[in-house]
C-alpha cells in the first residue's frame, strides 16, 4: 500500500515524552506542558495584565476628576476629556482582555490537540497487553476529560495568576508613591488572607486522599449497582443491593461534610479579609485627612483603588482545589505515557518465504507464565491448528507473531528472520488476522472492508465482499456499501460481521493468515456461506488457526495441542486420536457437546 507510506508517521512530541529526561511532576509538569506554546501564552499574559491595568483607568480618572472638582477653579472641558479617556480605557480593557483570551485559548487548544495526538500515537505502539488490562472508559476519560481540564490551567489559570500577582503589586506600588502609610494599611489584610487560604487547603490527616478514596469507592459501587440492576431485580435482591449502595453514599457524604466543616471557615476568613481593605484604609485615611496630611481626593483614590486591587486574587483563590484535580489528571496522562512502547526496529530485512518458527519462546503476563520454552514450526503454505483448553496460551501464540507483545525469551522468525528485525509496517502487511469477535468501525461498510487503504478501487472491494459471501446482504442494506455501520437501522448479525472481517482479510491478501476462533460464528444460519469464504482466503497461504470446534480442523496439515503454555502433542488428527491423550479427550467432549440435546424431563439424566 504505497500511498500510505507517504502519510505522516505517528506524531511524537519529545516534550510530552515521559521517557525523555527532565520530565517533572506536579506544578512543574503543568508549566512544562504549557511551555509548548510559550510565546502565545506570554503575549496573552501581557495583554491580560494590560487589561487589568486598564480596568483601573476609570477609577484613576474619577480621582483626577474629583481633584478637578475640589480645586478652586473647575475646568469643565478637562472633566469631559477625562471622561472620554475613561471610556477609552474601558474599551481598551475589554479589547485587551479579548486578545488575551483568544491568544491563551489558541495556545491551550493547540496544546490539547498536540497532547491528544501524542497520546493516541503512543497507544498505537503499546503492547496489546496494555489494552486488556485497561478499560476503554478509563482511556476515553483520560484523553477526553483529563486533557480537557488542562485548558483551565493553560488558558485561565496562567493569565489569571499573572494578573493576580502583577496587578495588586502595581496598584500598591502606585499607591505607595501617593501615600506610603495608606498603601501599607491597604495591604494589611493580605497576610491574613494568605494565612487563611493556607489553612483552608492544608491537609494534615490526608483527608483529601481519603476523600478521593471514598469518592472512588462510591463511584464503583454505584456503577456496580446500575450494571447489576437487571440481575438484582430478577433475584428480588434490590433491598440488599440498595443497602450496599446506601452505605457507600453515606460514607462519602460523611467525608464531604467533614471536609466542608474543616475548610469552609478559614476560606470564609480569606474571602472576608481579601474584601476588607476598606476597613483598614478608612481609619488611617480619616486620621490623615483630619491631620491635613492628605486631601480628600487622595482618600478617594485609595477608597477606589484600595478596595478593588485584591479582586484578581479573589478569583485565583479557588484555583487551589481545581489545580489538585488537574494534577491528578496529568498524573493519569503521564502514567500512560510512561508505559514502555514496543521497541521499533531500524532493520530493513524482509523475509522471502513465510514459514513461521518459535524457538524456545517463553512469555509471561504480569507474574503469570503463559508460554514456557515453546518450539514449533508452521511450514510455508500449510495449515497449522492450535487446540487446547481455554487459557492454554493459544491466542498469545498467535498474537506474538504480529508482535502485539514481545517474547520474554527465545525468538519468533518468519522465513528465518526475527520478527523484531522486520520493519513493523511491513510485518503488519504480511499478516491477515481474523479475530474471534469482529470489530467494525462506525463508518461505511466500504471503509470497513478497505481499512484505510484509500487507493483500492471500489470494484476490488466488491470482489472481496463477493468472495466472502458478503455482497448479498450488503447490497440489501439501505445504502449498500455506503451504509454506515451502527447508524440507525444498520445492525449486523454476528455472522454478517464475520463475513465483513473475511472480506477485509481477502482484500488484504497477505501471505500469512491467522484465524483466532474465527469459525465460532454467532449465527449458525450463515455458517455455510462463511465457510466458502474461508476456503478462498486460505488457499496458498501459511495458515494458523485456533479452533475449539475440533471437527472443523481434522483435515489440517498439523495439529498442535497446547496445555498450560506447553506444547504437549503434535501430529495430524488420526495420529493424535491414536495416541489417546488430551486431544482424544477433547475430541470426545466435542462430539458429545455437538450431539447434546436440551432436555427438561426427569428421566433423562444430564448426559
Amino acid at each position: 500500500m504505497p500511498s500510505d507510506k507517504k502519510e505522516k508517521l505517528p506524531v511524537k512530541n519529545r516534550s510530552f515524552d515521559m521517557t525523555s529526561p527532565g520530565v517533572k511532576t506536579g506544578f512543574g509538569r503543568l508549566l512544562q506542558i504549557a511551555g509548548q506554546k510559550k510565546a502565545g501564552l506570554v503575549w496573552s499574559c501581557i495583554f491580560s495584565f494590560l487589561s487589568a491595568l486598564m480596568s483601573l483607568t476609570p477609577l484613576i480618572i474619577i480621582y483626577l476628576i474629583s481633584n478637578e472638582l475640589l480645586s478652586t477653579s473647575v475646568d469643565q472641558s478637562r472633566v469631559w476629556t477625562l471622561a472620554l479617556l475613561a471610556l477609552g480605557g474601558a474599551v481598551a480593557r475589554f479589547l485587551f482582555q479579548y486578545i488575551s483570551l483568544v491568544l491563551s485559548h489558541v495556545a491551550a487548544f493547540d496544546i490539547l490537540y498536540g497532547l491528544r495526538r501524542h497520546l493516541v500515537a503512543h497507544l498505537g505502539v503499546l503492547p496489546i497487553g496494555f489494552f486488556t488490562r485497561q478499560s476503554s472508559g478509563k482511556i476515553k476519560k483520560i484523553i477526553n476529560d483529563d486533557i480537557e481540564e488542562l485548558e483551565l490551567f493553560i488558558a485561565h489559570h496562567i493569565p489569571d495568576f499573572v494578573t493576580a500577582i502583577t496587578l495588586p503589586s502595581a496598584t500598591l506600588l502606585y499607591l505607595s508613591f501617593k501615600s506610603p502609610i495608606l498603601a501599607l494599611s491597604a495591604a494589611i489584610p493580605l497576610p491574613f488572607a494568605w494565612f487563611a487560604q493556607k489553612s483552608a487547603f492544608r491537609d494534615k490527616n490526608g483527608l483529601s486522599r481519603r476523600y478521593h478514596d471514598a469518592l472512588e469507592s462510591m463511584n464503583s459501587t454505584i456503577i456496580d449497582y446500575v450494571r447489576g440492576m437487571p440481575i438484582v431485580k430478577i433475584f428480588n435482591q434490590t433491598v440488599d443491593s440498595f443497602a450496599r449502595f446506601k452505605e457507600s453514599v453515606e460514607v462519602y457524604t460523611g467525608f464531604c461534610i467533614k471536609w466542608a466543616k474543616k475548610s469552609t471557615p478559614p476560606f470564609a476568613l480569606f474571602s472576608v479579609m481579601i474584601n476588607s481593605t476598606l476597613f483598614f484604609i478608612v481609619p488611617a485615611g480619616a486620621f490623615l485627612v483630619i491631620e491635613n496630611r492628605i486631601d480628600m481626593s487622595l482618600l478617594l483614590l485609595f477608597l477606589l483603588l484600595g478596595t478593588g486591587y485584591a479582586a484578581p486574587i479573589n478569583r485565583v483563590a479557588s484555583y487551589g482545589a481545581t489545580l489538585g484535580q488537574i494534577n491528578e489528571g496529568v498524573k493519569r496522562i503521564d502514567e500512560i505515557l510512561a508505559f514502555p512502547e514496543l521497541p521499533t526496529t531500524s532493520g530493513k530485512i524482509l523475509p522471502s518465504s513465510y514459514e513461521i518458527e518459535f524457538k524456545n519462546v517463553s512469555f509471561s503476563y504480569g507474574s503469570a507464565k503463559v508460554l514456557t520454552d515453546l518450539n514449533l514450526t508452521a511450514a510455508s503454505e500449510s495449515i497449522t491448528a492450535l487446540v487446547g483448553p481455554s487459557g492454554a496460551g493459544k491466542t498469545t501464540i498467535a498474537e506474538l507473531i504480529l508482535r502485539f507483545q514481545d517474547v520474554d525469551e527465545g525468538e519468533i522468525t518468519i522465513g528465518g528472520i526475527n520478527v523484531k528485525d522486520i520493519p513493523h509496517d511491513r510485518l503488519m502487511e504480511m499478516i491477515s488476522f481474523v479475530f474471534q469477535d469482529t470489530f467494525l468501525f462506525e463508518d461505511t461498510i466500504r471503509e470497513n472492508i478497505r481499512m484505510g487503504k484509500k487507493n483500492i478501487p471500489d470494484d476490488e472491494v466488491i470482489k472481496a465482499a463477493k468472495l466472502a459471501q458478503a455482497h448479498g446482504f450488503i447490497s440489501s442494506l439501505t445504502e449498500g456499501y455506503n451504509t454506515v455501520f451502527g447508524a440507525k437501522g444498520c445492525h449486523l448479525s454476528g455472522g454478517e460481521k464475520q463475513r465483513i472481517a473475511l472480506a477485509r482479510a481477502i482484500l488484504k491478501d497477505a501471505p500469512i493468515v491467522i484465524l483466532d476462533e474465527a469459525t465460532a460464528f454467532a449465527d449458525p444460519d450463515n455458517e455455510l456461506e462463511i465457510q466458502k469464504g474461508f476456503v478462498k482466503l486460505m488457499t496458498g497461504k501459511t495458515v494458523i488457526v485456533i479452533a475449539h470446534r475440533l471437527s472443523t480442523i481434522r483435515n489440517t496439515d498439523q495439529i498442535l495441542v497446547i496445555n498450560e503454555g506447553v506444547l504437549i502433542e503434535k501430529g495430524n488428527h488420526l495420529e493424535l486420536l491414536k495416541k489417546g491423550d488430551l486431544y482424544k479427550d477433547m475430541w470426545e467432549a466435542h462430539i458429545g457437546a455437538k450431539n447434546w440435546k436440551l432436555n427438561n424431563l426427569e428421566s433423562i439424566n444430564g448426559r
Partner: protein
Amino acid sequence: MVDKTSYLIKTRRVSLNLALLLHILGYFFRGLPFGFLFLILVELFIDRPDVNKIILHIISMFVIMLLCLATTALAQTRLYVTSYLLSHDLRLKLGEKLRKLSLGFFKRQEYGDIAAPLLRNMTNFEDILNTSRPNIIASIVFPATTAVFLASVNLKLTVLALAFVVVSFPVLLLSMRTVATFGNKVISLRTVTGSRIMEYFNGMKQIKSHNLTGTRFSRLELSLKQLRRESIRLEAFVGPAIYSYMLVLEIGFITTLLAGTSLLFSKDITGPMLLIFLVIGSRLFELLQGMGTFVVLMRFMNVAVAAISRIMRAKPLPSVKHQRSIKGFDIEFDSVSFGYDETEVLKKVSFKADEKKLTALVGPSGSGKTTITSLVARFWDVNSGSVRLGGNNIKEYEIEELLSCISMIFQDVYLFNDSIYNNIKIGNTSASREEIIAAAKSAHCHEFISKLPDGYDSMVGEGGARLSGGEKQRISIARALLKDAPIILLDEATSSLDPENERLIQQAVNKLVRQKTVVVIAHRLSTISHADQILVLDNGEIKEAGKHNDLLEMNGLYNRLWVKQQEAQGWLLEKSR
C-alpha cells in the same frame, strides 16, 4: 433555573433557604460598612470633624466586619453541608427509583448514561447548590438592596445607573445564546471524539494489524482537529458577547460618574453623596459583571439537572390494584404486538407454552425471539394483546412475585464486584453455605472455585472480569439452581467455548431445566430437536409451529434452516486443492 431545581431540593428546602439567607446576610454585612463610610465622609467634609463620631463609626465598621465574617463562615459551612446532604438524599432517591423501574429501562440504554446522574451530574449539582446558585441569588439581591440605598441618596443617578443595567440584560441573553449555540457544537464533538477513542481502543488489534495507528486512524485525527477548531471558535465568539455585556455596564458606570459631576455643578448633590455613589457604584457594577460568568456556567449546569430529572421522572411499571397469586406456570401469548419505537417487533403473536414443557424459539436474528422472552419477564408491557401466566394476565401479579418464578440465563453474564460466594448467594439469600456449595457443585463450578487462592471468598473483579466466560456462565447457572424457579428463560450461548467447558455447561443446564417450564432461544437446531414445541419466527411473526419432525415435513423455513446447519456441521477447514 431556580424553578427547575426546586422540586429536587424539597427535602432540605428549609435548611437550604436558611443557609441562603445567611449568605445574603453576609453580603449585606459586606455592604453595610459603606453606609458608615458615607457618614465618615460627611464628617470629614465639614470644617471641624467630630473625631469621636468618626471613631465610633470606625468601631461600628469593625464590628460589622466581624459579623460579616461570622455569618459568611456559617453560611458557607451550611451551604456546603446542606448541598452534600441534599446530594446524599437525591442519590438515595435515584437509587430507590432505579429499583422500581422496569428492566426494559436498563436494557435499552448504556449503563453509563444511567449511572451519570448519580455520579458526575450529581457532583455538578452540588456545585450549583453551594456556589453558583447562592452567588446568582446574592448578585441579584445585593444590588437590589443597594439600589434602594442609593435611591435614597440620589434618585436621578440611581435611575440612570439602573437604566444601563436594564440595557445590559439583552446583551447578557445574547451571550447566553451564543454560548448555547457554540457550546452545543463543542459538546457534541466531544461525544464524537469520545466514541472515536473507544473505537480506537476497542479495535486496537484490527487497527494495529492494518497499520492504522496514530494519525493514520484518520477518523479520530479528524475529530480531534475539529474539536480544536470548534473549541477556539466557541471562545472567540462568546468572548465579544460577554465583554459587550461588561462594557455596557462599564459605560453605565462612567456615564453615572459624568452625570454625577454635572449634578454637583448644579448643586443638586453634595460631594460626599457623589463620592459614596461612586465607591458603592463601582463595587455594584463589578458584582453585576461577575454575574455574567455565573449565568454562563449555569447553562452547563442545566444539563446536569436535566439528567437527574430524567430518571426522577421515568415511569415505573404501573402497580397492581387487585393482586393475585400465581397458581400455574403455563405461559400464553394472546395476539401480542409490541415495538420499542414505531416499528413493530412482534405482530399479533399467539402461542401457548405448557407447564413443565420445553418450548423453543428459532429463527433468523432480529426475528423477535429475545423480545418474546423479555415480555414474559415483563421488561416491557405489550402494546396490544396479553401475556398470561397460569391463566391470568401477568399485569395482575406483583412484579416481584412474577420475577420470583423466573430464572433467566443470559448470554452475557454480569457478576458483582464481590466474592464468588456472594455472587451465587444472590439466587437465594437464605441459603446455607452447604446449599451454596451444593449448587456450585451441580453447576460444575466447585472444581475451579476450589483452585482459586481464596476459594469461595475470591473476588471476581469488576463485572466478573477475573473469570473466564465459561466460568461466569457456570456461576450464573449455580445462581439459578439456587433460586429453583419454576420457569426458565434460556438464551443458548453462541460464543465459542472449549469442548470441556461447553460440555460442563450443557450438563449444568440440563440439571437446571429439569421439571421446569422452559422457553429457550435456540441457535443450534440440533439441541432442541426433541422440544415439545418449536416456534419458528420470522420478522416478528410465528411462521411455523410444531415438533421437529412435523416441521421438517412442512418443508418450509425450519426445513431450510435445518438443512443449512446440517451442511455446515460437516464442514472442514481446508484449502481448495
